[in-house]
């Protein structure tokens, strides 16, 4: 036992060590991409409104007249202290944007993953277990269609049908205004705050608001899960240890569930990790479609007002999130699959 936890700890430390160069490369990329655009952030944001002298002064204040390498050093230092800069257009610190608006994106993403797994795992397993049945065919078509449909299109359709036409669900925002005002802010995650304060009406209201966005974003990635789990299960069911289990007279239901299902679900976590970037991209569009003021909406707003500092800060944050999540995914994998630890 102690030997195993030892190897797990070593694995975790190694994996964290490997993340350092990854973060550095990402930061260089973000920094360079932000400078490739013509001009500098200040003139881009406020070019039309200021005299050249004022511009030069602002540039000096923000440090954009320094050599690039120095600028990069300062960028690096501030990111390492989790300071993502201050926006040019409205003077907010990017960190506070992340704290105040991140909750929406988090709620959206987590709910979408729940939808994708809740739908994808059983559908994938059923399709694989009863391959070539009518249900299998329908499931496969469903997987391909949801995968190929653009998010905003799906979102708009859902809005049209369930909000405008049927009137079952609200079409935008994360809650009614009154609800938002009445829920005391603790975590900046509205759904969580409502749960903590025990306002069940508010919870229900928020849930209704998030339902369509969750499904829209969840459907974007569910197809990948269905297809992967189905193929995995089909292969696992023909696998060597499954045949060996049958040869020992293990009950067929145990063979399918304990041997085949469990093994076919191992790569799910990995695929989830690979889908994180896709999920964040989809979240940006979903937030825009459903008028949710998450980080995605903020990013689009700041892009429109050419606020490069804000964009750089948010993109840096997104990149760090992807790195951290992929690291967590690897840890979870090591816990599930004993072969991963070395």
């Amino acid at each position, binding site marked *: 036992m102690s030997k195993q936890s030892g190897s797990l700890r070593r694995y975790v430390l190694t994996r964290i060590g490997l993340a350092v160069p990854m973060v550095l490369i990402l930061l260089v990329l973000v920094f360079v991409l932000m400078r490739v655009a013509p001009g500098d952030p200040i003139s881009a944001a406020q070019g039309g409104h200021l005299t050249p002298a004022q511009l030069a002064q602002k540039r000096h204040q923000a440090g954009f007249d320094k050599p690039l390498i120095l600028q990069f050093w300062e960028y690096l230092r501030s990111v390492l202290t989790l300071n993502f800069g201050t926006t040019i257009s409205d003077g907010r610190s990017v960190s506070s944007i992340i704290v105040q608006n991140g909750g929406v994106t988090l709620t959206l993403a987590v709910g979408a993953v729940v939808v994708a797994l809740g739908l994808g795992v059983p559908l994938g397993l059923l399709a694989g277990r009863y391959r070539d049945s009518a249900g299998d065919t329908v499931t496969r078509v469903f997987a391909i269609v949801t995968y190929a449909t653009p998010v905003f299109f799906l979102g708009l359709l859902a809005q049209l049908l369930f909000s405008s036409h049927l009137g079952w669900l609200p079409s935008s925002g994360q809650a009614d205004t009154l609800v938002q005002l009445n829920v005391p802010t603790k975590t900046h995650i509205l759904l969580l705050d409502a749960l903590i304060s025990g306002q069940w009406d508010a919870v229900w209201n928020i849930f209704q608001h998030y339902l369509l966005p969750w499904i829209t974003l969840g459907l974007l990635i569910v197809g990948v899960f269905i297809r992967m789990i189905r193929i995995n299960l089909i292969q696992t069911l023909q696998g060597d240890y499954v045949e060996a289990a049958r040869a020992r*007279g*293990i009950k*067929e239901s145990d063979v399918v569930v304990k041997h085949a299902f469990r*093994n076919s679900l191992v790569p799910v976590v990995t695929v989830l990790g690979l889908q994180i970037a896709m999920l964040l991209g989809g979240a940006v569009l979903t937030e825009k479609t459903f008028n949710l003021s998450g980080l995605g909406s903020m990013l689009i707003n700041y892009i429109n007002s050419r606020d490069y500092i804000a964009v750089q800060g948010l993109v840096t944050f997104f990149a760090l999130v992807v790195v951290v999540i992929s690291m967590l995914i690897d840890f979870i994998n090591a816990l599930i699959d004993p072969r991963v630890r070395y």
Partner: protein
Amino acid sequence: MSAHVTSPEPAPAGTADTSRPVLSVRDLRVWYGTPRGPVRAVDSVDFDVRPGETLGLVGESGCGKSTLGRGVLGLAPEGAAVDGEVNFRGTNLVSLSKKQLQELRGPELGLIFQEPMTRLNPLMRISEHFAETLKTHEPGLTKDQVRERALEALRGMGIPPSRYHNYPHEFSGGMRQRIMIALALVLRPAFVVADEPTTALDVLVEAQIIRILADLRRNFDTALVLITHNLGIVAEACDRVAVMYAGRIVEQGDAREVFARPQHPYTQELLRSTISLSTTGLHYIPGAPPDLVEPPTGCRFHPRCPKAMKVCAAVEPPDVLLNSGSTSACWHQAQNIAGAIPPEHATDGREPLALAEEISVADEA
């Protein structure tokens, strides 16, 4: 017929009736459906195995050995058709339901596989494999009893108790095969098929495994079918041998007798092509085993047989029981039986088959 055999009375060890076969196979056929037509991988096979006896099953790759081994245990893959009789202690296994077969596998029937590396569930500890197997067939066992039985079986295979809770990937190939054997034998099945259990292992480990299997029949009266293409193993570990070619058993008999005086030309060729101390130069049988969708007419070996006669290409030779107790399916023995050769081949049937034809057919196959 009565098909319920979930709890046959256990045969008292040592006093088992060694003359009566524990398993007797009659006219067994296994086909695989393929787009090109049925592959007759096992085509009318008969054999018996007695308690404590080891039957070696040999033949080139693709002759249907694995199919036969699995077919006997009711483990033919989905889409395969099985017909004939597999009599196990008075029950025809072929007519049993999936559920009845499942209950027999483990406590009565066992299978040891060729590649041990992939046969254990990578997510389950060795202990969990044993617990699952034991609890499935003996639900009343306590945790301690499970542990005791499993450790005893593992000890018999030289796996120390300290490794009981390890995962499969923490073992070498040889150890995994010994674990697989322990797992197959933990419930003391009366009949076991070992399908090339040492092919994937190195020579030292092979010797070890063969010794374990040889001990098995001595200590537990287990009847064993040992599939191998290593004739050395058969000579060392088997009482009797069955030689398989293109889905049929062509020669069968006492292992020492068959090796000393092989009667069927295929057996002779197979023995010639093994490496031994006296071998100078390597002999091999020209051509390859035939396509089993459209096997050759007559004797299936005739396109490759150095002793083929005209009748061989036209009519299938019958099984002939020889004085030695062996059986052989070859016209060289069958021609002496009055009336065996059909009248239309009586005159020229014994003439050698033209060499040219022999080669062209062999190349085609």
